[in-house]
């Protein structure tokens, strides 16, 4: 009988479970520091604002988690978000279509856009980085083709959703934040409890093996990018609620924020290790850093950048050192 139970793991690259916990721990510290330094920082509404203001980023980060878990990357999400706001705004303002139809169409376009990139990546064996980088240019370019102006959305449904506040005690939360949380729950379920979700992990762990084990790698990969495109489009719709406008310059650089959030949340960029829920912690960390800076209110533009960089640095290093430490034990 061979028993290997109880043996410590020898070479797991880095335990994602620990990294994720460490992130939560660091987030709590960050919030505690903020609370101590700035009165009102720890109020419930400020915490809700974190969710309200970052709902779209959370949704994008969820899609990005899937992509990164599968060992890929998607740089097009920010642009697809912008494109979605543009499509929504254009259809609503120029054609006056039913908002629900518009939403459905926008989601479909985002999904198709992602699927197309996934297909290119898989069938032509192209680098995800490059394909989605080109996708990023393309989606932004399409925005400008629709209009280089920003278009204000006046559709009553969008306006209503934008201004609805769901009260919780004295405070409130936006429908967008709720949608984002529901998406997160659904994504966690998919990742953990469905064969598709597990196939993502398998592809991220070793694509060749996944293929040899008889998984439908092609379908999985196309679906992953389609899902990321869907998330980006959904984020775009949340963003439309949030901003009530369509604009080609919306959400520039969001892809990097999303990647940073996912990685800070404990997911390995090389794929296969991590949790979708990490996206939430990652997004909250980034959001808290920004809120902290806004509460401070004395930093000039460049100091803002430097402080964000510095906090990112501290975060990554502490996370890394702690997971090294725990791994060694």
């Amino acid at each position: 009988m061979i028993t290997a139970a109880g043996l410590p793991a020898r070479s797991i690259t880095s335990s994602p479970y620990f990294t994720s916990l460490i992130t939560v721990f660091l987030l709590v510290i960050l919030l505690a520091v903020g609370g101590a330094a700035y009165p009102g920082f720890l109020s419930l509404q400020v915490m809700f604002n974190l969710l309200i203001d970052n709902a779209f980023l959370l949704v994008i980060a969820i899609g990005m988690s899937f992509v990164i878990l599968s060992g890929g990357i998607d740089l097009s999400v920010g642009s697809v978000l912008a494109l979605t706001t543009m499509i929504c705004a254009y259809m609503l303002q120029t054609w006056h279509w039913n908002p629900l139809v518009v939403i459905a169409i926008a989601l479909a376009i985002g999904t198709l856009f992602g699927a197309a990139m996934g297909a290119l990546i898989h069938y032509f064996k192209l680098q995800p980085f490059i394909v989605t980088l080109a996708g990023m240019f393309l989606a932004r370019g399409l925005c400008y083709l629709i209009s280089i102006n920003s278009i204000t959305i006046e559709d009553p449904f969008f306006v209503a959703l934008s201004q609805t506040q769901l009260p919780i005690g004295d405070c409130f939360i936006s429908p967008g934040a709720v949608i984002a949380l529901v998406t997160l729950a659904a994504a966690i379920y998919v990742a953990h409890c469905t064969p598709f979700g597990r196939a993502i992990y398998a592809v991220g762990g070793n694509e060749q093996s996944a293929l040899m084990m008889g998984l439908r790698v092609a379908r999985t990969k196309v679906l992953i990018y389609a899902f990321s495109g869907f998330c980006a489009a959904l984020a775009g719709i949340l963003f439309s609620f949030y901003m009530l406008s369509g604009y080609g310059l919306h959400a520039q650089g969001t892809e990097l924020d999303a990647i940073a959030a996912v990685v800070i949340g404990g997911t390995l960029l090389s794929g296969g290790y991590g949790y979708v829920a990490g996206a939430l912690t990652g997004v909250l960390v980034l959001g808290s850093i920004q809120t902290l800076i806004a509460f401070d209110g004395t930093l000039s533009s460049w100091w803002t950048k430097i402080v964000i960089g510095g906090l990112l640095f501290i975060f990554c290093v502490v996370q890394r050192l702690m997971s090294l430490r725990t791994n060694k034990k």
Partner: protein
Amino acid sequence: MHSPVARAAAPTKASMPMFVQHPLFRPLAALAILLLIDLFMVPGFFHLEIKDGHLYGALIDIANRAAPLILAAIGMTLVIATRGIDISVGATVAISGTVAAMLIGGTMVMNNGTPEYVANTPMWLSLAAAMGVALLCGAWNGALVAGLGLQPIVATLILMVAGRGLAQLLTDGQIITVYYQPFFFLGSGYLFGLPFSLYMVAAVFIVTALLLRKTALGLFIQSVGINPVAARLAGLKTAVLIFFVYVFCAACAGVAGLMITSNIKSADANNAGLLLELDAILAVTLGGTSLAGGKFSLAGSVIGALIIQTLTYTIYSLGLPPEVNMVVKSVVVFLVCVSQSPEFKTMWRRAFPARAKG
């Protein structure tokens, strides 16, 4: 026993001309096609004349303007070969340019209504300082990636975010204008009729290529990129190597920063080298190097950079409205990438079997 090798040759391969097989064929073809479009669509595109004793024309512009991108792409190639990526190149460009401009800098003072220019620090010292700072940036990245084992994209993201802030901190958000003539030679001077920047690029390229050829650097970088565990067990100093490539990449970016600053005679901390990292990565891939690390082509990256710059220039020359710039760029990137993929080659062969066999 007969060897299986003897019966080897695959029929399709043998019939194709040798140069089509070459990995640089497709990037070169893409470049050629772009130039061909220019030839027919842009009158006088290939026209070169002598002006003020140096060559003047669209081609010169492209080469000159591509110079910083080529430099960045050369550095990026090595980073990518080790399975890394450096998205802080643009920030490094901003920092080195800013430092140089500030040190050389000088101000215009009005002296009885006539402008006079004053320089601050000796040029060589300023350049050395700027390069030193760039190397520090690289060392920072290298330490995070090789020392701490952070994932490259995140490690360099830190400098990408903070670096531009540092550069702006130095300049107080102002654009620093340089008034010192000799400094302009780097980015807009001419030597034997050709832009001086081309000589700098050539020098960096040749030195790098020699380094890769004449030492074991190329082999080591590839080994680390393909299988870092095996490379370590074979006795490579993997960490040192990875550290080195980030420093090297930053050094390339530093030179690019000097060039850009010198070219526009000022350091614009906020905009210098903005998104240069993305173009550099694009150039590397267009040149046929895989982002998965391992095998790389330095010459390919140079060609990739030229493709990008030619494309940009073509868009300007054709007079396309600025709204379509990005769409055109993305479509070209898609086309070049797809045409380079082996799958496309197979499909092509299947679609045109006669050609392949003939």
